[in-house]
């Protein structure tokens, strides 16, 4: 092989690898990202049944209903709008009514989020940032960290 051909081989190889990586990323990004909405935003959007979303807000006081086995239903609120969530599994350590929560899963046709993943805050200071932002939008944010 001549010098030129060798160089060409490396350049082609490098471009192929980079191209493959970029292509894969684009393709994967199209199908594998999940959008986050506050309950108010979700109400304004038409989400097709089966589309995965993440919602964040507070667990509405008095909305937690225990069903058969580990099935639970609760509502997530940003004080303006509520979203009903159904979940079958073990709730996280700090899941309580009135506390911040993020739920992720597909929307069903009746507007209920069939969560397969529920996240609560880690400690008394920490609030999922998405929840904090959703609450700030509604002007009901009371936590710290607002101005510093």
């Amino acid at each position, binding site marked *: *092989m001549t*010098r030129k051909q*060798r*160089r060409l*081989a*490396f350049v082609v*190889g*490098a471009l192929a*690898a*980079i191209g*493959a*990586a970029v292509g*894969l*990323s684009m*393709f*994967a*990004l199209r*199908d*594998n*990202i*999940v*959008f*986050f*909405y506050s309950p108010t935003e979700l109400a304004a959007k038409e989400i097709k049944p089966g589309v995965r979303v*993440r919602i964040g807000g507070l667990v509405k006081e008095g909305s937690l209903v225990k069903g058969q*086995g*580990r099935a639970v239903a609760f509502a997530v609120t940003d004080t303006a709008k509520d979203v009903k969530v159904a979940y079958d*599994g*073990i*709730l996280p*350590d*700090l*899941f309580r009514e009135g506390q911040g929560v993020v739920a*992720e899963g597909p929307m069903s046709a009746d507007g209920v989020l069939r969560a397969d993943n529920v996240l609560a805050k*880690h*400690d*008394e*200071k*920490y609030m*999922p*940032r*998405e929840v904090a*932002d959703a609450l700030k939008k509604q002007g009901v944010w009371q936590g710290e*960290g607002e101005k*510093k």
Partner: protein
Amino acid sequence: MIVELGHYALVLALALALVQFVAPIVGARRGDEALMATGASAALGQFALVTFAYGALTYAHLVSDFSVVNVVEHSHTLKPLIYKISGVWGNHEGSMLLWDLILALCGAAVVAFSANLPRDLRANVLGVQGLISVAFLAFILFTSNPFARLANPPLEGADLNPILQDPGLAIHPPLLYVGYVGYSVAFSFAAAALIGGRIDAAWARFVRPWTLIAWIFLTLGIAMGSYWAYYTLGWGGFWFWDPVENASLMPWLAGTALLHSASVMEKREALKIWTIFLAILAFSLSLLGTFLVRSGVLTSVHSFASDPTRGVFILAILVVFIGGALALFASRAGALAGGGLFAPVSREGALVLNNLLLTAACATVLVGTLYPLALEAFTGEKISVGAPFFNMTILPIAAPLFLAMPFGQQLAWKRGDLLGAAQRLVVAVGLSLAVALAALALRGGPALSILLAGLAAFVFFGGFAEIAQRIAPRRTQLSVMLARARGLPLSAWGTAFAHAGLGVTLIGIAAIGWGDEKVATLKIGQQFDIGPYRVVVTEVAPRTGPNYTETVARMDVREDGRLVAVIEPSKRAFQARRMSRTEAGIATMGLGQIYVALGDQVEGGAIDARLYWKPLVTLIWIGALIMSFGGLVSLADRRLRIGVARRAPRRKEMAGALPAE
């Protein structure tokens, strides 16, 4: 008083770091020996001062000095001693101080092991190292002072976040930080080479041990973090593609690429400019990781507190160092003599392929980690990029890399023989097929697991194939084989172990497909079959620990009616912070584990739990240990030992003495 002295020492350290930055670099420009030599004493002095400052903060934590804000917010008189010591870095300020301590340690180590270095290179390296110290010491002093006092000290502290009250805290952060910060030395060497305008094979030989040490620690740190997350988060997963995990994976990928390209540079004087670039990239990604974790742009167990000024400060450091290094690179790299070209099918060619795939993997992780942040910054839309994205992008890049690894080891430098390499790998291929078929016959399970098991076996056996052929190319007596094994360079052994270790990890990952998982509500006396075992709940009772109370479920694990283990998963409630934490019950059976995590207590004494049987799961971390061991063996190689490398005069003679690999 000691606290104030610590603060003062830190200020002095900043002043010394400034001297360390300016004096040696100016000295190197002017050829002034005395100025150049100040770098060494400044680095040692800085190390002593930062060590003192760190000691002062540790002292404040040990004696529970609640007039120090840092201690009030993160300690408690009842906290066990080990968490008083490790709790020093269990918060933002302390962990940044640890960062600085390790940075100063790196500077001192460069001084200690660089007697053979050309003086100007040594001076420039210490100068750049000094500049990094300036940035981070200023960061601590101006935005994250750990020595701040409180006018009215309370009687009791707020305690450490319970999630962090774990032996993992004592091990994971220091290991990870040595890895992160260790790359600063490679970075400084790269910048020094660009400043000095000279770069040759000896440079690669100087840099490789430092990169290797950082890589070993980073590997251990990531593995330790993974195991900690596995047993403490209660989800039974070992990797969550969390941005914070990705932040540590990116420098690892770049550092792995750097190790390999440096070996090409050392042996063949090729890929010089690329190697310099990777050295810059590895540390830049470490800085990016620090920014992501410490600035509060991400929320996770790692982000202790978010204060916007800190984020902006770290971002500025990031921009100055990455931008500065890349600008230096752009202006100087063209002037450096490029390396020679080589045949695509050769050891060099294989290492280039390794570099391409590793950097491509690194780039996709970067995209997946930063895309959500960028999208939110520009459009306000919030998205999450999770495991599906990474599984989909990393797997197709990683699979060819794993396949190519054994081939790379088989190819000769300069001109390789692909067919010959394939022939020499026949045994490894046969063994891997046997493993895959055995997995299929014995376990069944998902096709992906079977394929991955075969691939893992190929990486494992392929890793040792080279050694096997060099020891016994044909039927040989055992004594001859042993003599030859001793004669092999340790770096060949190191490569074999590091590659085989990856194979071991992959087998552990493949075995996930053969596990079992159940969610159940447990009552006393109830039995659950999980995998080949039967779990029986014998007791659910409260218990009191030093600074928590817990609900413990005792369970017998039985195999064919025989009691093989007792596990005690629990749910701990920490009074000081009114927080609870799940303590998984884990029983290790051979290489697999039974894993039980409790949920909330429900009525009638019954409790929810997740039960898992995870066959071969420990191999995931054992593999990482083997990888690090491989790195250690390489490090012990005479040729690679720190400070042994010399410049030009001895190079020919050394190259002549080396066996052609």
